[in-house]
């Protein structure tokens, strides 16, 4: 049974007990515990069920590489699935639930899959669920979804209670990893004067050196760590962050740090996670190494643990998975576990060393304690169950015929060490195979390259290959010096002197025993989280999956949330063996960020709640909000769709606004319309290129409606252009088009016509613009002027249609344009934004006697449709050219060129079969469904009815008392009066007559008064 030891536990504080619950059971741990160590101390060896076979699983590792101990953490709006017990610091009131079991962890129905394992080999799902086709959607998928998967998604009705943030940081040298290698590299780099940032993913510094022993500069590693930390903290050019994982390395020295601020102390306030967005000149990856499991039958039974992890639990947290431990190894390091266990009073029943000649000095030390060491031996099988009970021992070089069975309640395994090369590899660093250590390590000749073609990542310490303490420190010092030098500093690689016992060479062991029979291989796990076994990879190889990337996807090896930290090397070694190939030839799969899963909250950062997205507000926004605005998003703006009065529906409000504007006077907040000033000696010819029509000939004081097309000829934006003076034009764009068209103009000016003398300035927000619309508009403005004792003459003679004038109205300095998008008498009046609300208030007050009402975008839309005016985004969709919309009058025939001209001459653009704009009127006055297609005779190649047109805008017109629509119809303008059919999605067929798109005031008399 697993338990807490009376001694040891350098990280825990036994004077501070902490209460927590696991699956509802109250348990006690200590400050400094991880959830994993606390569970172990509470005899909770069983932590979850496996993904596919629902086998009982326990802790395998002690850090980020842990595949099994995933729990649902927290409750309610702080619940989070798939949290690793090994990286979760214990806090008071922590509540964890195990995952992937039903109905309970102890008794799981899904374990029946375990008995069916023979029938669920690699690729089973691919092979099984292909036929019959409809079964996938209706039978297979629902069942698989129920039985597969890890943690539960949080309740969709709840919102994460925590906040998150980002932080941008710049440094010369970023050191990822705060073990002895990271600290050594940081110290060397910092002494050169470089600005250094050191990230450590755990709460404590020093990595595993304090557990592994040896001496640094003649003292315990822990003492050196403390002293070095103190030295670094005292340096102004050094920043140290613990609980902050280096998550990813990207181009140009960009790296992500994932800082967990309150996970260990929820409720302390402030953001929970902080994403560090770092630009470093050089990055040192001192990310250590991860021990590999051994592949033997039953290596997933709870109680089988990595040897170094077992050592960690004893030394760091005073917890042990058992009292009678068997050690299996292919290298010397695992003897340290035997020594540690022995020192803690735990019986080591046997050490099985696969090497015929055994190990070196460490083995002798273990033997001297009277512990039985057997060389050339391995584990044939660990008996299945919820914990280790019996272990069968065999010759490593055999097929697994058991020679002896021993009783043990835990197994420590060590298959050698693999450097953590993830961060080195994220941005293209290459690896080299180290035969002696049987691992991939960074190839210093092929680092990730920066913009200058030189490497910007240096691996340090065991992340670079060396495993002995002395070699780790000198490698790290060199890495620190190299990084500092590359960042432009002069550094001296003076390492601390690390001394540890010499180790005998390890022996690569990819299967235990080497020639294990199939029944053993089917129980020898490679990937614990995704339930991939040796036999699965071998099957994939037999079925022709030669590429490691394909094998990975076929078997799901390394595709779980641990990204194969434990399984990758073992898996590809088995694959290489099955293919009769060498491991370096098979290669690795791709390492991708993040190193360890990070929270969605951290990615989103501050962008949530009221600052999820910027909302753009006009100067009159608050007034609209207080006066019934039903908001509509237009880009990042919010515009009132309609101003809804008490007791009124939105639809009723729209009708009221239309009728009132047509009969009296309405106000539209048009401030969002783009306003671009274009000035310079070449501005005229520039605008002639930008617009399809001629703008250079526009007279000062006049306005002209213009169209803009893309290079491909498609209509992109429209608006009214006003000539301000000889060299200056003001171009109105659509609301959504302001920034886009500004960028479009700048792009042409900067890349194509860089020698033209034209400047563009976006003054959209400088001005509040109000459209005063309706037959009583002039009366309203004249009244305002009268009240102010004079002002701009707004008569037809002084300010005719399609002209503009500067002056004062009602005492407000303004520019007034006689332009109309409604067909009514209309003034668009621009005042400084700081005066916008005051001007609006003045219009509302003076307009009361004329029945003035504000109107929203829907009223605008309906009124323009009644007039047959097109709307960018309704009549256009990126495939429509002005000629389709009957806008030939706005396309200059005189101009030699304009953007889109050539494209509009291409064969498909001049095809008479292109659908063209017409008006549509249903026979019964009903409203056509938006986007409906008109069908003609015959069928296409797919047996579908031929389409001959579609609805682009459709409304109920309160002015005309019937439905009106615009649409694009094949040969439309030539088919006036014909009735065509639009099948609706509701089963009805709408019949509509093709008519002129101008439904209201065809002669345009009302706007020109």
């Amino acid at each position, binding site marked *: 049974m697993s338990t807490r030891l009376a001694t040891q536990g350098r990280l825990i504080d036994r004077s501070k007990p902490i209460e927590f619950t696991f699956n509802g059971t109250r348990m006690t741990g200590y400050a400094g515990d991880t959830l994993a160590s606390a569970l172990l101390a509470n005899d909770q060896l069983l932590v979850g069920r496996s993904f596919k076979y629902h086998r009982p699983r326990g802790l395998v590792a002690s850090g980020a590489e842990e595949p099994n101990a995933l729990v649902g953490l927290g409750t309610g709006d702080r619940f989070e699935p798939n949290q690793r017990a090994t990286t979760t610091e214990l806090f008071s009131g922590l509540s964890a639930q195990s995952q992937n079991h039903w109905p309970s962890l102890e008794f799981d129905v899904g374990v029946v899959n375990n008995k069916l394992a023979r029938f669920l080999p690699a690729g089973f799902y691919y092979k099984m669920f292909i036929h019959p086709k409809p079964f996938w959607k209706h039978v297979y998928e629902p069942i698989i979804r129920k039985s597969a998967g890890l943690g539960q998604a949080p309740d969709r009705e709840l919102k994460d209670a925590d*906040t998150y*943030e*980002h*932080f*941008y*940081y*710049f440094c010369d040298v970023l050191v990822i990893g705060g073990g002895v290698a990271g600290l050594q590299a940081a110290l060397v780099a910092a002494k050169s004067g470089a*600005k250094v940032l050191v990230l450590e993913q755990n709460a404590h510094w020093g990595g595993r050196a304090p557990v592994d022993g040896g001496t640094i500069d003649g003292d315990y590693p822990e003492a050196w760590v403390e002293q070095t930390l103190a030295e670094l903290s005292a340096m102004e050019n050094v*920043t140290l962050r613990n609980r902050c994982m280096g998550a990813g390395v990207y181009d140009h020295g960009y790296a992500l740090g994932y800082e967990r601020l309150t996970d260990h102390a929820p409720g*302390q*306030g*402030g*953001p929970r996670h*902080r994403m560090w*967005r770092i*630009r470093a000149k050089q990055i040192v990856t001192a990310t250590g190494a991860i021990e590999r499991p051994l592949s033997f039958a039953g290596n997933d039974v709870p109680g089988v643990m990595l040897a170094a992890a077992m050592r960690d639990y004893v030394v760091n947290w005073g917890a042990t998975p058992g009292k009678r431990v068997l050690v299996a190894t292919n290298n010397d390091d695992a003897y340290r576990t035997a020594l540690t266990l022995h020192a803690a009073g735990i019986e080591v029943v046997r050490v099985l060393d696969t090497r015929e000649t055994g190990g070196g000095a460490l083995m002798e030390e273990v033997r001297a304690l009277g512990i039985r060491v057997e060389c050339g031996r391995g584990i044939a099988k660990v008996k299945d169950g919820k914990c280790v009970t019996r272990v069968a021992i065999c010759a490593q070089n055999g097929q697994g015929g058991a020679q002896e069975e021993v009783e043990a309640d835990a197994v420590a395994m060590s298959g050698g060490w693999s450097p953590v090369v993830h961060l080195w590899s994220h941005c293209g660093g290459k690896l080299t195979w180290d035969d002696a250590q049987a691992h991939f390590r960074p190839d210093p000749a092929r680092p990730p390259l920066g913009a200058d073609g030189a490497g910007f990542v240096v691996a340090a310490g065991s992340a670079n290959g060396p495993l002995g303490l002395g070699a780790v420190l000198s490698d790290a010092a060199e890495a620190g010096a190299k990084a500092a030098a590359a960042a432009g500093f002069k550094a001296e690689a003076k390492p601390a002197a690390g001394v540890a016992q010499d180790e005998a060479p390890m022996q690569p062991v990819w299967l235990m025993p080497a020639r294990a029979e199939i029944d053993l291989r089917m129980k020898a796990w490679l990937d614990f989280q995704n339930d991939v076994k040796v036999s699965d990879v071998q099957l994939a190889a037999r079925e022709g999956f030669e590429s490691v990337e394909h094998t990975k996807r076929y078997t799901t090896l390394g595709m779980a949330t641990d990204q194969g930290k434990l399984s990758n090397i073992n898996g590809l070694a088995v694959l290489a063996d099955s293919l009769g190939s060498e491991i370096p030839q098979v290669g690795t799969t791709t390492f991708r960020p993040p190193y360890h899963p990070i929270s969605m909250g951290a990615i989103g*950062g*501050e*962008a949530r709640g*009221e*600052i999820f*997205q*910027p*909302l*753009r*507000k*006009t*100067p009159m926004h608050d007034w609209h909000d207080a006066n019934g605005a039903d908001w509509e998003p237009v880009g*990042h*703006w919010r515009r009132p769709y309609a101003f809804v009065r008490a007791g009124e529906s939105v639809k009723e409000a729209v009708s009221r606004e239309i009728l009132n504007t047509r009969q009296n006077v309405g106000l539209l907040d048009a401030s969002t319309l783009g306003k671009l*000033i274009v*000035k*310079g*000696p070449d501005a005229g010819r520039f605008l002639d290129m930008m617009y399809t029509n001629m703008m250079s000939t526009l007279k000062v004081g006049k306005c002209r409606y213009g169209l803009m097309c893309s290079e491909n000829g498609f209509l992109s934006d429209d608006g009214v252009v006003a000539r301000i003076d000889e060299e200056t034009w003001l171009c109105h764009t659509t609301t959504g088009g302001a920034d886009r068209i500004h960028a479009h103009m700048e792009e042409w000016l900067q890349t194509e016509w860089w020698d033209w*003398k034209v*400047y563009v*300035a976006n*003054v*959209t*927000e*400088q*001005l509040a613009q109000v459209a005063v619309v309706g037959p009583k508009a002039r009366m309203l403005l004249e009244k305002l002027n009268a009240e102010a004792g004079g002002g701009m003459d707004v008569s037809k003679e002084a300010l005719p249609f399609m002209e503009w004038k500067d002056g004062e109205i009602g*005492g*407000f*300095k303004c520019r007034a344009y006689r332009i109309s998008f409604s067909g009514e008498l209309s003034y668009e009046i621009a005042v*400084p*934004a*700081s*005066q916008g*609300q*005051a001007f609006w208030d003045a219009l509302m007050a003076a307009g009361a006697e004329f029945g003035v009402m504000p109107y929203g975008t829907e009223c605008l839309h309906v009124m323009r449709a009644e007039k047959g005016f097109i709307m960018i985004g309704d009549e256009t969709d990126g495939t429509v050219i002005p000629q389709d919309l009957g806008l030939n009058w706005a396309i200059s025939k005189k101009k030699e060129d304009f953007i889109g001209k050539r494209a509009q001459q291409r064969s498909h653009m001049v095809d008479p079969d292109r659908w063209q704009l017409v008006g549509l009127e249903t026979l019964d006055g009903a409203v056509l469904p938006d986007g409906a297609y008109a069908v003609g005779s015959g069928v296409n190649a797919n047996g579908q009815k031929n389409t001959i047109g579609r609805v682009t805008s459709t409304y109920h017109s309160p002015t005309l008392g019937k439905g009106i629509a615009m649409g694009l119809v094949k040969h439309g303008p030539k088919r006036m009066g014909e009735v065509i059919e639009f099948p609706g999605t509701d089963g009805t067929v709408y019949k509509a007559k093709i008519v002129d798109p101008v439904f209201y005031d065809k002669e345009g008399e009302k706007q020109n008064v």
Partner: protein
Amino acid sequence: MSDPLSALPGARYAGLATIEESGLQGMITLRGDLSSKTLQKAVKAATGADVPSQRQIAVATGGAAAWMSPDELLLLVPYDEVEQTTSTLAEALSGEHALAVNVSDARALFSLSGAGAREVLGKICPVDFDPAAFAPGDFRRTRMAQVAAAFWLDEAETFHIVCFRSVSQYVFNLLKTSAHPQSRVGVYG
């Protein structure tokens, strides 16, 4: 005319740093050849300041000139003089290719002061705020979370932040969130 209103009159928040809306500020976008003697003279006349070098602001009594791009300056002048100054400037530059526009009302201006100011901005702008990298007189046109912004640092270690008027509420809320009292990063002293 009635009294002009700034974007968020009186808005203020004190956390890791103090955020205050600065009221109305005369601002002129000036585009032209920054090496032109005429332009330099006109800028001096309008603001009292010289044409600044790249990513700098030149501050004088009563005005300032900030570097926006190789052919663009942002001129700061008293709000009630901005229209007159814009016309004078345009006149002075009438002989060459240049554009001067009053953009005072298109903008909002905030000040950010106090010990945490660098960190507050460091959470939302991809800029190095190390005192060695961003000093008084430095000016930066950049991104503030999801919107465009520009700022400079004055001799009193106060940042002045310019953003578009329509997003002033967003920017204020953004700064407020970043200045949450319990969100200190602790890297800039």
